[in-house]
């Protein structure tokens, strides 16, 4: 029942991770491994697309908390997009919108990275 899967897409220095199914205590480690792999490759600009995610538990949210410091300290970020109302409610109750950029569409998320780049060119 608790199925979870991921797909990855790369656009320049951006990585988009599509997550699908149920992200709970049993599947969180898969998601964490995928995120860690992206970070190990030195890719710190990550968009997580939630459009096909049915459920997220506290363990799933914990994964973001576990990696965000490293990502941000390397000049990157994790931006989230396309959350269903139900999933957004969980994020919202916990106060994640205060800690993360959560936007409606993937393009918006990508645009956020581009804007940040223009503001602070390397």
């Amino acid at each position, binding site marked *: *029942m608790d199925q979870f899967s991921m797909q990855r897409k790369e656009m320049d220095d951006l990585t988009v991770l599509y997550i699908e199914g149920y992200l709970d*205590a049993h599947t969180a480690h898969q998601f964490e491994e995928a995120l860690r792999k992206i970070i190990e490759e030195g890719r710190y600009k990550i968009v997580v697309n939630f459009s096909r995610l*049915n*459920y997220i*538990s*506290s*363990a799933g*949210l*914990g*994964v973001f*908390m*576990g990696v965000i*410091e490293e990502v941000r300290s390397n000049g990157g970020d994790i931006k989230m997009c396309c959350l269903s109302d*139900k999933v957004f409610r*969980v994020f919202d*109750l*916990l*106060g*994640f919108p*205060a*800690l993360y950029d959560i936007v409606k569409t993937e393009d918006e998320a990508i645009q956020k990275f581009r804007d940040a780049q223009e503001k602070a060119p390397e």
Partner: protein
Amino acid sequence: MKWLSTTFWSRQRNFFMVLLGLLFLAVVLALDLAFPYMSDLPLTLYWMREGLIVATFLLYGVTLYGRRYIEEKNILYKLRTVFFALIGLYAVVLVPRMLFSRSSSFSLHNLFAFYPALETIFLRMLISVFFTLFMINILILLRTLVFYKSRRKTHRLFHASLVLLGGLVVYGHLSRTVVQVEWTFQGRTPFEWILLGFLLLFLVILSFRSSWVTYLNRRQKYLAFWGGLAVLPAIILVFRSNVLDEISRFSLTVGAFDSFVFYFITIYLAFTEINLLLHLPTASIFDKKMNEIASLQNLSRMISTVLEYNRVIEKVTELARDVLRADGTWLEMVENGSEVRVVSSNGLSQKELARLPVKFEKSITSWVLENRRSLLINEISRDSRSSYLRKWKKNIGSLLSVPLVSQNRVLGVLHAIKHEEFGFDQDDQDMLQAFADQATVAIENARLVEESLEKERLEQELRVAHDTQLKLLPKQMPSLPDVEIEALCVTANEVGGDYFDFVELGSHSLGIVIADVSGKGISAAFYMAELKGIVNSFARIYTSPKELLIRINETLYENVDRQTFVSMVYALLDTSRRKLYFCRAGHEPVFYYSARHDRLELLQPQGIGLALDSGNVFNRLLEERNVKWRGGDFFLFYTDGLIEARNQSGEEFGFQRLYELVWKYRDRSARELKEVVKEEVLKFIGHARPHDDFSLILVRAT
């Protein structure tokens, strides 16, 4: 009563037998000494003498015959004993000959020639007795050798030969001729000739039964062969001398028996030598095969004893190298579906292992995984598939790789290498495959055991987590004037991290805590315990919910790992002022029912979860609210497990259903409302145990 015990008695019996035999022989000797003085030899005396001799040897023979003379395992050891006994016999025969010899001439023809007078009688008897005792032993040895792994037919043939011999002896006595199993027509009747012919035929057939030769190892085969050749002069010596004639003169029966056994051993020895000679060229190959079988058996034995995965894989490479006499072996296992890793090796250095190319598109491993067949490459340098291995290790000549297949799934690949080219043959390939099949079973077993141990450990962990959670939850509801308090926590199989508590802060004041620790199981239970400690100590210091949560956040943030966070509502219930002060740190909202307005509303002040942030965001966003309540009002606190409870088809209980349920039963007592919610949720999910904990606290003003 010592003499009654069996060992004592059997020792007594043996002693008695020997004594009886000696007595018989003494009588025979007396008769022999008396014979020259008798003019006419009475036939009865002759029969008596013959009977006594036969009885003596029968006593000896029957005692020995019943025993299991040779254990299968130490044939060669027994053969060696016989070899030394033979030397002893010759000493017994030759030494008296030298001592008593009067003639200076010494040749083969007169080696056992006897001299007139008394010495003849003594010597003839001495030699006959020793030779016959030796021959009885030889017969029993022959029996064991012939019977080795033989069928019933052989047993019958052997006994038929003995019966035929008996027939010949009786016939010989009746016709008063010297009976020998000799290939001669002289003085024989056609009947005797037929019996003799059959006897010889039987002996030849029996001489083919030398399968024990096969099971000797190479060294033993050589030893047996050269030992056999060394016995040859002794045999020739007996043939060229007249010892058998002399024994026949001592006793016709014994002579016939000795001749029979002597011919038997000669024929048998001849056939065995030929057999040994034929086996010698293949001895080393046979040894190798035996070695392989032994190793396979060794592995099978190991399967039932070694249950540790790491020990099994170590043994697999070690035994594989032993069996094949390979220069190196290593085992690769498929992990996580497609990754391949070297898990154990033998005869390879750490450095070599680190540089070993394992899996890529055209590697040997990929080939074996794909084809699920073993692969033998005898010329590494000339085969395109394996040329990359030469870059890895210069001195590889040949490679043998076999898959470990279990239920149509390839678990891994076992490789063996030799420095020389053409180091492996077809047999090696089959052998290693058989070995790998056994190894697969061993590995699977070890894995199953470890899995069940792991499962047990997890279950143990679950129990610990549950116990912890139960101990942390309050056992009694607090009692305060004007309010009815009810709480409920339905725990999931795997502890979900739900926690609630009450902190009594005086007769009119109560701290109410409801929280959900992220994650599950033992770690969640551990953080719950930590949280309880922090909340209980801080709640007495900081009375304002906002300040309390800010302090808790600071402490938690520093003491838990980054993945862990807590959502919590802390409420301070003041019954004297009839007020509820509360803060929400990332938790589900609070239901508030106002009886005066008959309105059910949700209170959701701002606030993010605990331990998400060091304080900057948390402190800025946290908002404290207070509600003035009246009689009939109620507050309902709950955790997300309640609305996220799923039924079999994956549908969630949901917020809407909860809201409608609470609205419908708004007039009931706190206890009734609690029971209704619990029943409805459990009915919805259709099991006794939810996949996540769910909790609720009801506070109703009376």
